[in-house]
């Protein structure tokens, strides 16, 4: 009995952490998908030195995309850490 109660607890704690990670990443995703592009007009007044891109244009053409790629690699790492912490990760 204690074993299964223990498992239940681990499952719940694991899922709480997973959910929190999900919400964090969805927040970042939402910011770089929508919020930042709402300010494109003021951002376009700033020009990136040397490269010459207006910042608002740059964020939609490259900036947000780079964020998405990087966050996916980080997410894969973080979720794996959570799975390992609670013993739910697959064998290597």
């Amino acid at each position, binding site marked *: 009995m204690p074993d299964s109660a223990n498992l239940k607890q681990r*499952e719940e704690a*694991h*899922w709480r952490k*997973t*959910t929190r990670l*999900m919400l964090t*990443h*969805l927040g970042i*995703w939402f910011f*770089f*998908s*929508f919020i930042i*592009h*709402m300010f*494109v*007009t003021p951002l*376009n007044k700033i*020009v*990136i030195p040397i*490269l*010459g*891109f*207006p910042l*608002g*244009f*740059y964020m*939609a*053409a*490259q900036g*947000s*995309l*780079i964020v*998405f*790629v990087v*966050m*996916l*690699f980080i*997410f*894969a790492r973080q*979720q*794996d850490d959570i*799975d390992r912490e609670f*013993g*739910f*990760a*697959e*064998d290597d």
Partner: protein
Amino acid sequence: MSTEASASSSDFIKNLGKMYGTYTGGFILFILLLAAMEQFGVPNRILGYLFVFFTLAVYAIIGVMTRTAQVSEYYVAGRRVPAFYNGMATGADWMSAASFVGMAGTLFLLGYDGLAWVLGWTGGFVLVSILIGPYLRKFGAYTVPDFLSFRYGGNFARSLGVIVLVACSFTYVTAQIYGTGLIASRFLGMQFELAVFAGLVGILLCAMLGGMRAVTWTQIAQYVVLIIAYLTPIVILSTKKYGIPIPELTYGQAIAEITAREQQMVATGLATVAGLKPHISPFINYSPLNFFAIILCMMVGTASLPHILMRYFTTPSVREARQSVAWSLLFIFLLYFSAPAYAAFSKLEVYTNIIGANVSALKPWIFNWGELGLIQICGKNAGSIDAIVAACKAIAGHPGVVRLQDFVINTDVIVLSTPEIAGLPYVISGLVAAGGLAAALSTADGLLLAIANALSHDVYYKMIDPNAPTMRRLTVARALLVVVAVISAATAATKPADILAMVGWAFSLAMAGNFPALVMGVWWKRTTSTGAICGIIAGFGLCLFYLVVSRYFPGAGVKFFGMTSLLNPVTGAPLVDVAKAMALPNAMESFPTLAHPLANKVGWFNLNNIACGLLGTPLGFAVIYVVSLLGKEPSKEMQDYVDEIRKPRGRTVLEEKTT
């Protein structure tokens, strides 16, 4: 026997790097060889044929070599495709003819507003990884309807899943085959219909014998071809112009020059303030609502498209499924962050060397495309200098130089003509054609397989004959693949008018039909079968209704469903005078052509029908939530299964018979 097979298969995986490395090197040597042949005077047409036949032959050989008679190999490539390679295959699966050929042209025309597509077609992978993909991998499905059926009580949910899958994949695959035909007919001078069927043979060769296994290893080969083909011309162009071989960095200067030139054109009367759409100004082509709606629908659609989700069923583990999504986006990113560079370089070229040039002094590359009707100057196809001069003379008060309003270019031309604009040898043009073909074929492969698998696995095996022996299941799968392919090729050969809009619709339909049920199925244990079924019907139904009515029955939409004209994003004025259009005799016509004054121009809340998922998806979520709460909690057993899906460790929930 079995140990021998597994030993040779692990050798196969270990040698992947060497194999694809050799392949990539061989492809580059092949390009250099053709370049040398061009110098020795081999005609362009021969070079074009060599490019296309060599690449098609490689795909076919891979297809034949990886043929299989095992169910799990056929449906999920034996679940042993490493994350990195699965990412590459997904990249090719994802990037279609529309991405390869059309994206840069869209950015050329729409400027900043076109970036909605760039954002929408990349950010969705975040949702795939966080919300859905890895959980479906753990579940152990062969197809997306497999999951719906298991989680939501059987074959009714399964058949809804199949309907959604076929609806969105079929419109999408038709567009790919159309693209294949277009490229083949332009570069090989084949007849369009013939080219469509030639492309089809290429697709079938890969997919038929080996299913997912063959498609996977072919798609990796296709990714290599398409990314080399896409990047080579602009890398050369960037080096020529700015001395740095990284176009993604140097096109900032091109944008600054475009902006300066735009003001100059207005000042010198080459463009009118009303006619000019500044490249970096937002919300000129789409209202802010539609701009953000397109981003959201394409992103959520990504996370709901069955041919993408099923790619993550092939990884060896849940962990690798997650890593694989990250690799996928990296490989896709390489193309998408280069597309705006294409657009900027072409626009600068057009603005400086065509607009303001004397009509009798235009460069010859324009006429190659003008003959095909893809570039028009002064309202006539720019087939020759005489034709243009005559056309411009016919316009009263024409100054004799090309003005912005005189120049019209088809969006497909931008990528295909860049090598010529830059004055590169023909071999680069042939390379671009081979790349476009690879993009179209790889996506078509994945889509056809998704449809055929749903029909053979979900409909035939699970619903009609659960006792069918393996051989018969695979035979049925292959036969259905051919049938679906022929039907979609026949549809493509009729050249349906709104082929590109249909790609957008596929995303919205997938989003409204699949996303709420998939996400809630994993993230909310309380979701009941009745709730999910009602949610799929309501969400998918509303989305389908909105786009069918606004496109095919616009008169009825206005008369019975309170639709109004969409608004011009700059002035806020209605696009059509609805009262006047309704008074016309053809107002209530069904299935009107795009020329109909109301088609695609009416709707609710000024929302484009491409973004119909924005209406259907929230409704789907709401219905699932409310109906689930009204019903009885799902069984303890089902809730335990959901717990299992959430933990990467352990056996898959669904165990398929494999023999």
